[in-house]
């Protein structure tokens, strides 16, 4: 699996902040550097957010990439509209993008309106689909479900993401407008996050890539601020999205587009894992639609955004009240159907052979009981249980545990003194009994 979260190996200091925060336990520190276990990464960006050294990045393309194409289309994610404190004029923002060198703008927010209408139609007509339908708009959530909740995969809305719909449509329009063949059109997503960046490079539900490059929203934002100053007043009418599409930028936006349906909107990846577990266990009250945004506050909280997510959220809420309804008309959901079936990518399986897997699990439990249950992170794993797992999977060692090491030191030194060489939290006379409900 391919990703857009990377780490500056030179500058990573090997602290365990990201290890502890990763919702899928995908990070380990080894030899003073963090490493990402690729199969477990969902590109949610939590590690980028929490890194105190700002060592983790979402890989985007340099702005120059647009010059590789004769005709350049910008796909601004709807969260872009929440970034500006001094303007709520979508036309001005979009005209600023043209000033920066793009030949055309295609709002992701406009495509989001089509998707909203298509979802409504699916909810109204299609009885083959299980309830609740789960939004497939956040690629981090889709990855999480494909990896950890395969039973819920049929619940995902079987439509492509708004940015993909916007890319497909704009390539056609741009080709007509410029007279150039479609492959000479360059389409660039202005992305709020690593998850969307990855989704453009390695589409999950499309046969081919439809976006040619990804630009970081923060990078674009800085340039855009000055470009907007060069826009002649009044800016041309470019915006085609209304309150519904713009509203998608914040958590709850998709839900507001389905006012007569029973919906639950959840933001924040940890909260999402909890609600999906409840759904899997049949513990949720019956609802029609689940909107899930990996980032707190929704896409305005994406790691590549510039504005404080709460401020941006308020801005989006205000915009949805100010801007006029769009003229976008419903199109059949088939127009936006996923072209490829999502694939289950298990990342939590110990062995393909059932008996082997069972043996490994037994060994993990055995090891875990021998570990102190402090979840201190000194071993570079997020918890004692995770270290036990690593040992069995061959990517960790018993001596990685500072307690285990102490025992060894005691054996060698033959004295209780070894305790003094441990950091204060770990100095202890005797080992404590560990219960199974601890150190999960």
């Amino acid at each position, binding site marked *: 699996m391919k990703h857009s979260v990377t780490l500056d190996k030179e500058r990573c200091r090997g602290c365990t902040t990201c290890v502890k925060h990763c919702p899928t336990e995908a990070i380990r520190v080894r030899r003073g550097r963090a490493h990402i276990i690729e199969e477990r990464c969902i590109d949610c960006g939590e590690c980028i957010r929490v890194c105190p050294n700002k060592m983790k990045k979402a890989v985007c393309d340099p702005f120059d990439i647009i010059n590789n194409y004769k005709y350049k289309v910008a796909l601004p994610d709807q969260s872009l509209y929440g970034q500006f404190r001094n303007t709520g004029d979508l036309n001005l923002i979009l005209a600023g993008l043209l000033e920066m060198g793009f030949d055309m703008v295609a709002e992701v927010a406009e495509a989001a309106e089509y998707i909203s209408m298509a979802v409504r139609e699916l909810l109204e007509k299609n009885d083959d689909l299980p309830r609740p339908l789960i939004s497939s708009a956040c690629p981090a959530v889709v990855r999480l479900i494909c990896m950890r909740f395969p039973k819920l995969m049929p619940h995902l809305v079987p439509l492509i993401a708004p940015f993909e719909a916007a890319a497909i449509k704009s390539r056609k329009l741009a080709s007509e407008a410029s007279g150039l063949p479609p492959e000479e059109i360059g389409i660039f997503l202005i992305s709020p996050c690593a998850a969307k960046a990855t989704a453009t490079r390695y589409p999950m539900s499309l046969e081919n890539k439809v976006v040619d490059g990804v630009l970081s929203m923060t990078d674009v934002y800085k340039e855009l601020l000055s470009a907007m100053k060069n826009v002649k007043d009044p800016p041309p009418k470019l915006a085609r999205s209304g309150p519904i599409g713009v509203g998608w930028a914040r958590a709850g936006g998709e839900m507001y587009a389905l006012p007569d349906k029973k919906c639950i909107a959840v933001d924040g990846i940890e909260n999402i894992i909890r609600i999906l577990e409840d759904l899997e266990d049949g513990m949720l009250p019956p609802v029609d639609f689940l909107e899930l945004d990996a980032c707190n506050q929704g896409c305005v909280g994406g790691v590549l955004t510039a504005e404080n997510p709460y401020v941006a959220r308020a801005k989006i809420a205000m915009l949805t009240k100010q801007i006029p309804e769009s003229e976008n008309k419903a199109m059949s959901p088939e127009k936006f159907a996923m072209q490829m079936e999502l694939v289950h990518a298990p990342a*939590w*399986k110990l062995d*393909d052979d*059932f008996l082997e897997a*069972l*043996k490994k699990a037994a060994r993990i*439990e055995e090891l875990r009981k021998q570990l102190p249950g402090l979840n201190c992170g000194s071993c570079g794993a997020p918890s004692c249980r995770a270290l036990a797992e690593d040992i069995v999977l061959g990517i960790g060692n018993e001596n990685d545990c500072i307690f285990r090491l102490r025992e060894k030191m005691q054996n060698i030194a033959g004295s209780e003194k070894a305790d003094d060489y441990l950091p204060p939290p770990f100095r202890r006379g005797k080992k404590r009994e560990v*219960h*199974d409900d601890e150190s999960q």
Partner: protein
Amino acid sequence: MSAAIHLSYKVDGSDFTGAGTASAAIKRILREIGVDMDTIRRCAICMYEGEINMVIHANGGTADVYIDTEGVKMVLKDNGPGIADVEQAMQEGFSTAKEGVRDLGFGAGMGLPNMKKYSDEMLIDTEVGKGTKVTLIVRFPKGGGDGA
């Protein structure tokens, strides 16, 4: 029983939100072993209902879980009031839960019936004034995990 796993959990009687710990842990392990999702779900429901019952009716207890190649055995033991009429307790909708508990969404009287429904074997050993022991067995489908 060559490759057997034994887990044990204390279920705190004073905490509704704590119930579910054992159920979540079992889910995780079964998923790692590669047990099919349906079996995982059945085990999780049995365990969760058992945990909840110990919290709301018996002031807590212990849960022991044994996993081997055949399936999962769950043993829920408490020193609570016991069940006077097991046949009655097994009926759908029967509950002695107090109002306060019902307001929290528990006490629909479906716990024991669901445990019966989702397990392959269920045994209730109870004595009024002494406590209750519920043993549940969920067998893996033939051929072990299906990889889902």
